[in-house]
């Protein structure tokens, strides 16, 4: 663990590469997706594509209600892995695959596992697989992240 101090003497812990092992699991995260959160997403990303704010348009698209956009899911995956690693890790690569839209009214459960630990071009890296499932256990958004970690 590395420790860094911030404002008001807050302490921030970061995992170091040597303490991570392949097969390590990340703590589960549950997040209810309210209308309010979908609209926060629209406002935060300024993505005014109607599927994200107009339920009638979303239904016409064959999605049950207004749904989260790509940028929200990217931010959620990044937040999920950095909650675990601490702030010193750097996201080098991230892939998200949106198989089933996540709409207002859904609740997502996120799980992750370290699949690979390696060094490449002088970077200490770990690969983390992240699954975002909905309340019916459907795999909505399988994702993977390559993180560079401190020594």
């Amino acid at each position: 663990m590395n420790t860094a101090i911030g404002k008001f003497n807050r302490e921030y812990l970061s995992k170091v590469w040597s303490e991570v092992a392949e097969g390590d699991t990340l703590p589960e995260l549950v997040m209810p997706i309210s209308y309010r959160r979908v609209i926060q997403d629209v406002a935060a990303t300024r993505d005014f594509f109607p599927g994200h704010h107009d339920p009638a348009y979303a239904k016409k698209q064959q999605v049950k209600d207004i749904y989260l956009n790509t940028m929200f899911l990217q931010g959620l995956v990044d937040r999920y892995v950095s909650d675990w690693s601490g702030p010193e890790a750097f996201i080098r690569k991230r892939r998200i695959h949106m198989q089933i839209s996540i709409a207002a009214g859904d609740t997502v459960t996120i799980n992750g596992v370290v699949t690979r630990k390696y060094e490449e071009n002088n970077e200490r890296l770990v690969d983390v697989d992240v699954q975002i499932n909905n309340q019916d256990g459907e795999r909505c958004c399988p994702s993977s992240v390559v993180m560079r970690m401190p020594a």
Partner: protein
Amino acid sequence: MTKEATGADIVTGTLEEARTWIGKKTPVKFNETDVNRPMIQFYAAAVEDANPSYWDEEYAGNAHGGIISPPGMLMAWSMTPDWNPMRPKSQKSQSTFDLPLPGTTLINVSTESEFFRPMRIGEILNSDSEIVSISDEKKTRLGIGHFIVTQATYRSGAGEIVATNTNTMFRYIAHGENHS
């Protein structure tokens, strides 16, 4: 014809027309919004990201020389405000919305990003992109259409590559859509 509450301004055409776009790089587009703290914190709040790189100036100052952008905001910085009096009237976006395909709506399918360094407050990033491939007609749960793969490169004002994106989008006619 049914009345729509909102539309998405999508240009339609044929697959043959659309495929003439493959491999043509767009002109470099400069973001209309600089990387800024209020938007960073609004976004971090939406996903409840407590990373001090986005919130704590003291921590971020020591770690990065200041507050940085979450990587997930890469595309958010290039989103254009709905209205901007300074935008040149002639500006054509050449986005996947303008790609002439039969599909009347679209949904994003997957995005793969690579980051080379953090995006810093005050930066105005720019990008160019090109369409790499357009699939033959495919049928999914949502409808019938084409998968479009686009590659984009994001640079700093000095031309340094900050990130790259490979994106797959589905342009489709939704099942049950009224054609009359």
